[in-house]
């Protein structure tokens, strides 16, 4: 194997102190997937507990801490940094044709802030754990004996800085490091998605920062801003919290949508349909997402006028999202569709995300939301969007760029694990829609007997889902050692990262690459000898 970023230098410090965006991306990947594993095991314990209505496996306090940690780790340690931190860091500069991100040191700092934040947040378990859900609603989080809340909120504060640094880096990189020829409208859609995400990371995260600081000040000093006993307003906390956490939902999903645009185009071997609509819809979603936080609070005692405005604005976000789905279908039209694993994930994404998006309409509509709010319907909805959307897209992206990152091909046969994930996921979460519409409240340790059959279905589904994910983990790790060497362009992608070798060399590009249309597949042909796609002779100089 010729010199590449993995073999360029050796030793622990060459990784720990690296400024190479590719190595930082890889370290992020290991870190976020470890969090996914930890929080996923917690989810399995939760589902196992719900096999029967009573308290079987764990007691109430343990359950509440599990449920809280599952949410907090998944949101703050896994989903938010997952695609930008891992795949974004690795792919973005190469796709752009740059040698690195704009501020490599800041990039490394962002990773270490993640580590510190994660240690403090998870370390709060040692201080007695945190319950109350990942939303930390006051005044519950201010009550005596919950010291863990301080650690967790401090951790979230630090993770916020990590997220800001990543976003800031990406925005400056995209603005300032585009090589000649890479105009805004020649950028692959993945970059548009990451760009919109980065804007959200910069503009929304400071608000969660100040909210967490105020919460800590309230908890430690009693400043009286959120504590009703001191004249504070607990609903103000909810406004502050959701002002960040709703845009955060789009920090999670926009990169997912962006990956799918790449996958659908590449595996349909077809120019993406409606490039500018998709690009602008990412930015539109980012803008609208700041105006809809109140839809988390329709039953909080907010004024009906505010509720009405938030409901109307909420629908405005749904339109650009719908547009993307129609555009993907139109991309497949008259294509040449291959069903390799990344494409399976992309198709699963369309199926699941459509369900997740459509069920959002029930929750955006005021009168139906009153019934469904804080029930399992909401749990199912956001799992369809977050897991069925972001996680599935991330898995798709991971398979797509796996040969590029590792230089190895995984076994396409075992890619069939995707089907296990798909079936298990639907069994787990579709049943939860039914639970919720029948009135089962969320965050319940024990539940009424009439919900048991559906809970059981959901739990069995979750075990299938876990099995699928473990199969995936297994064959991916296996491929690191036994996988075939990957060609430069195994899928026939036309974006710049496929122009450099797999894995890429240390400096990405020795000479600035020629930038063309990122979705023009006409000059690519399959070369059975290398198992990859090459430019037709004469197409490129």
């Amino acid at each position: 194997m010729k010199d590449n970023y993995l073999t360029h230098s050796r030793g622990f410090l060459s990784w720990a102190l690296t400024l190479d965006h590719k190595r930082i991306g890889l370290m992020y990947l290991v870190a976020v997937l470890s969090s996914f594993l930890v929080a996923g095991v917690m989810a399995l314990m939760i589902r196992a507990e719900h096999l029967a209505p009573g308290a079987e496996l764990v007691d109430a306090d343990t359950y509440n801490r599990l449920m809280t940690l599952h949410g907090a780790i998944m949101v703050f340690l896994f989903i938010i940094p997952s695609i930008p931190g891992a795949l974004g860091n690795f792919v973005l500069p190469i796709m752009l044709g740059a040698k690195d991100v704009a501020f490599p040191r800041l990039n490394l700092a962002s990773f270490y802030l993640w580590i510190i934040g994660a240690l403090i947040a998870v370390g709060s378990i040692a201080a007695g754990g945190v319950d109350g859900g990942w939303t930390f609603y006051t005044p519950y989080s201010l009550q005596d004996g919950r010291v863990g809340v301080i650690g967790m909120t401090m951790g979230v504060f630090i993770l916020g800085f990590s997220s800001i640094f990543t976003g800031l880096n990406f925005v400056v990189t995209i603005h300032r490091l585009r090589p000649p020829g890479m105009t805004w409208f020649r950028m692959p859609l993945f970059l548009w998605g990451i760009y919109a995400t980065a804007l959200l990371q910069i503009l929304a995260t400071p608000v969660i920062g100040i909210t967490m600081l105020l919460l800590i000040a309230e908890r430690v000093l009693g400043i009286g801003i959120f504590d009703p006993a001191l004249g504070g307003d607990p609903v103000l906390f909810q406004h502050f919290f959701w002002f960040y956490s709703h845009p955060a939902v789009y920090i999670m999903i926009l990169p997912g949508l962006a990956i799918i645009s790449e996958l659908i185009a590449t595996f349909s071997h077809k120019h993406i349909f409606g490039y500018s609509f998709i690009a602008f819809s990412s930015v539109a979603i980012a803008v609208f997402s700041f105006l809809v936080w109140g839809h988390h609070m329709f039953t909080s005692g907010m004024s009906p006028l505010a509720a009405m405005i938030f409901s109307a604005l909420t629908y405005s976000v749904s339109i650009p999202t719908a547009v993307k789905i129609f555009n993907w279908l139109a991309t497949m039209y008259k294509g040449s569709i291959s069903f390799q694993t990344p494409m399976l994930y992309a198709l699963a994404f369309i199926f699941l995300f459509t369900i997740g998006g459509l069920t959002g309409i029930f929750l955006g509509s005021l009168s139906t939301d009153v019934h469904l709010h804080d029930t399992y319907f909401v749990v199912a909805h956001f799992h369809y969007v977050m897991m069925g959307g972001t996680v599935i897209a991330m898995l798709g992206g991971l398979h797509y760029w796996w040969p590029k990152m590792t230089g190895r091909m995984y076994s396409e046969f075992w890619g069939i694990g995707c089907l296990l994930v798909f079936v298990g996921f639907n069994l787990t979460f579709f049943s939860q829609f039914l639970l919720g519409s029948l009135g089962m409240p969320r965050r319940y340790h024990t539940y009424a007997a009439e919900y048991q059959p559906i809970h059981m279905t959901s739990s069995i589904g979750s075990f299938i889902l876990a099995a699928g994910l473990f199969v995936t983990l297994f064959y991916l790790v296996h491929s690191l050692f036994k996988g075939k060497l990957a060609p430069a362009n195994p899928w026939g992608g036309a974006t710049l990262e496929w122009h450099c070798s797999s894995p890429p060399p240390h400096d990405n590009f020795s000479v600035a690459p020629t930038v063309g249309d990122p979705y023009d597949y006409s000059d690519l042909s399959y070369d059975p000898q290398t198992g990859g796609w090459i430019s037709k002779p004469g197409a490129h100089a």
Partner: protein
Amino acid sequence: MNRLWDSLFGSAGQLPPKLSTTAAEVDWLYDYIYWWCVFFFVLIVAVMGYFMWRYRRRPGHGAQPSPSHHLGIELVWSVIPTILIIPIFYWGFTGYMDLHQAPADCVKVEAEASQWQWKFRYANGATMGNKQSEDSPYFGLHVAPGRNVQIILSSNDVLHSFYIPNFRVKQDVVPGRYTSVWFNAPFVDPASPDFEAWPPGAPTEFETKNGKYKVNAHRLFCTEYCGTSHSTMDSWVFVHESQEKLEEALQGGQRPLGQGHAGRGRRRAPTKNCASCHAKHSRRSRPPCSGASRRTGASRSPGSRTAPQVQVTVGREYVLQSIRDPGSQLALQDLSNPGNPWANNMQKGLYPTLENEVYRGDEEKFKGKNGLDAIVAFIQSLNQKRDGE
């Protein structure tokens, strides 16, 4: 199985039966949204499936040229969903207003939430807990059929949420403010063929010492996370056959006065500035005033700085006297200890007293079950809980 089949067809199987007057409107909108969702979902998946099959990569088949954008079609599929959304928003909003604006003629019941119980207080002063207990068989929220009932919600500690799935109503209970929710539930004889119950096997009778009474029972949940026993902070709503039957059933069911008393005192106490320290969730220091324990302390007699050590029972009288003359019941060494924050406040004369506060001269008015007694009962009740922790 039947229900599973029904659940393919919208609200009939997916939602509990419509058991209040406002439920039908919510369910109608639910169905409206549901069928549009089914339409779009089937459309998208069918198109996707067809393209997957039709354009699968195979020998002799490559991608065919087609336009990579088409403004007209893109506008069409942006505008059509926008138009479809408007009525959904409108009906959602009007339905919400109907749930939100209680009619003027409501019967009012107070529901007071605390970790982890509901306390229902009726207009006649009777109170009931959310669960059956040894000291009282009376529990739950009892309402007459066909009446507009408004529940006034308040919280003693943290956020809770009041949810009755069968009525499609939900409202957060926020400490420091009042919120409310209203409904109007019919009564259907459990023996009649029209009778629908959710959950299946919900109680159809409520037994008191006056006999067994037919009821329609509906589950009531807390849906805002509130701590360890959040999941057991539930209860039942009992809709009785008629107003008369309701009154007859609950005749003599009023719980000992202390309970309702303490609740009344709670509403009153903040106006006398007590609750900010004495409330259970307050982290502020406050003098001992538990009704349960005995504490060592010196009673301070006027003019004497060397009071003898005596055992003081921290009981009702202790609390009452402390309200009349703050510090009178406290040990002198406590008061003179500068490190004692509440003693520090005490010396600044910051506790309201009967002498210097608004109710000077009105003391008689504040006696009895509506006044000072209620505050005393309230403080005792809170501190029993807190000191017991």
